[in-house]
């Protein structure tokens, strides 16, 4: 099981009120990856719920340093300041949550922030920081840069805005200016994963591969699956950085969720009570279609084709994974960056790497990026040789 899957289950357990099991799962990941930001966030939320505010704040400071754009962490910090009747800081953090423009699925963070600010959503001021985030997320880095610079004129210490500016510059391929901003970010948030990824790319582009890889490795301590790095680097037509394989983590039966995945696990009562048995050791004999309503899905969540292919890869059902990925590549329904990211993620599994790289090459040819396609095909050839050896 990937660490992010364990954390997703921890989050789900937390939302269902099973906070003890949530924190057990998070601690299990932290034991292996002490700087895992998402695991530390789950632990912080549990500490907040238990009224252990100092402990919660300690984890939240780390999470915000690693992920300055994490709206959940900012919202939790705002709530803690409010509990401590530090209204000024609570409102500052709440404003920051709003300006981060949380994802659609993260209404809770926005609601917390609006509650602290005492305003309705339609009364929110549209600040340059908000515009910067919206424009960057809409794929307009040029205007995002202008708004971010205006926002920084007003609040030069805002690391989240500076990170938005750095990302805009990075997307505009103004690497020296991006590096300058990343250096300032590291002064204040030296664990920042996204800044590390951008700086690693800048170093690699200058031929300082070892330094770039080393920096990327530091980001991997916080995000061991390199999810942020994969998502960011997938925007590039080509890069020289090597992303390590996606790690797997065993979850002891004692803390394994009773409805973990939409597939293989038998009903809880039928599970062996053996602490050494992992979820991976219980493969399903029967193929499971992604239709229906698997228990594991959070309420309202759609089980997408992408979820399905990830599940197939987790089960090591390579043939079916290849079939579904081929459909994804051919139907043009997803954004190219998303398909690139998914295939690079799939290529992280050595047994599937050659196929995934070849599919990525085909996809890049389809999307008229021959140079990037050549890179993918070369990796496919390299993976085939490794497999043959």
């Amino acid at each position, binding site marked *: 099981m990937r660490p992010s899957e364990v954390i997703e289950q921890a989050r789900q357990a937390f939302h269902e009120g099973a906070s003890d099991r949530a924190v057990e799962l998070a601690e299990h990941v932290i034991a292996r990856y002490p700087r895992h930001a998402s695991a530390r966030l789950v632990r912080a939320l549990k500490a907040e719920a238990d009224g252990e505010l100092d402990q919660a704040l300690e984890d939240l400071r780390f999470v915000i340093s690693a992920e300055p754009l994490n709206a959940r962490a900012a919202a939790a910090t705002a709530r803690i300041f409010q509990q401590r009747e530090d209204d000024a800081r609570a409102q500052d953090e709440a404003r920051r949550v709003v300006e981060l423009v949380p994802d659609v699925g993260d209404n809770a963070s926005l609601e917390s922030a609006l509650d602290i600010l005492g305003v309705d959503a339609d009364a929110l001021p549209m600040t340059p920081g908000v515009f910067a985030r919206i424009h960057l997320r809409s794929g307009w880095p040029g205007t995002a840069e202008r708004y971010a610079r205006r926002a920084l004129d007003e609040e030069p210490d805002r690391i989240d805005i500076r990170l938005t500016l750095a990302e805009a510059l990075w997307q505009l391929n103004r690497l020296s200016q991006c590096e300058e901003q990343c250096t300032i970010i590291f002064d204040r948030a030296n664990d920042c994963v996204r800044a590390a990824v951008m700086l690693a790319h800048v170093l690699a582009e200058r031929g300082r591969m070892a330094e770039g890889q080393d920096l990327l490795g530091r980001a991997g301590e916080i995000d061991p699956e390199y999810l942020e790095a994969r998502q960011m680097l997938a925007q590039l037509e080509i890069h020289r950085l090597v992303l390590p394989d996606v790690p797997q983590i065993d979850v002891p039966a004692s803390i394994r969720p009773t409805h973990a995945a939409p597939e293989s696990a038998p009903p809880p009562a039928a599970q062996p009570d053996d602490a050494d048995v992992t979820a991976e050791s219980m493969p399903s004999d029967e193929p499971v279609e992604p239709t229906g309503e698997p228990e594991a899905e959070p309420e309202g969540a759609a089980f997408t084709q992408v979820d399905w292919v990830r599940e197939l890869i987790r089960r090591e059902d390579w043939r079916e994974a290849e079939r579904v990925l081929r459909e994804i590549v051919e139907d043009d329904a997803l954004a190219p960056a998303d398909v690139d990211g998914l295939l690079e993620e799939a290529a992280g599994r050595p047994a599937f790497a050659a196929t995934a790289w070849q599919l990525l*090459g*085909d996809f890049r040819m389809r999307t008229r990026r*021959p140079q990037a396609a050549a890179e993918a095909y070369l990796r*496919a050839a390299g993976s085939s040789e490794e497999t043959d050896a």
Partner: protein
Amino acid sequence: MPDAQALLADLKALDDVDGAVVWRTGAAPVGDLAENVSPVAPGLLASGIGTMEQVVETVGLGHVDELWFLTEAHQGLAVRLGDWQAIIVVSLDADIDSLRNAVTERLERQA
């Protein structure tokens, strides 16, 4: 893509053609090369030619219609016609001029 597969079969049937790769702009390449080369060879050849086209265009030399290469054992010819592109790999003693005409003719039929 049936069109690409048909064109590929057509090219492979030409005298002296040892291998061929075919693709249409916006589609993945299909190929039939010698058995002892890498399974990703069609993709590599196609993306390599595509990269070369981009390079030539980027430096302002115009659009590439044909590329020919020579190794110690083979000749290779890439021909573009509109959205369609084909690469053939032939032996050293093959008549590349007549093959060029044959490939172009088949691409014209496809276009």
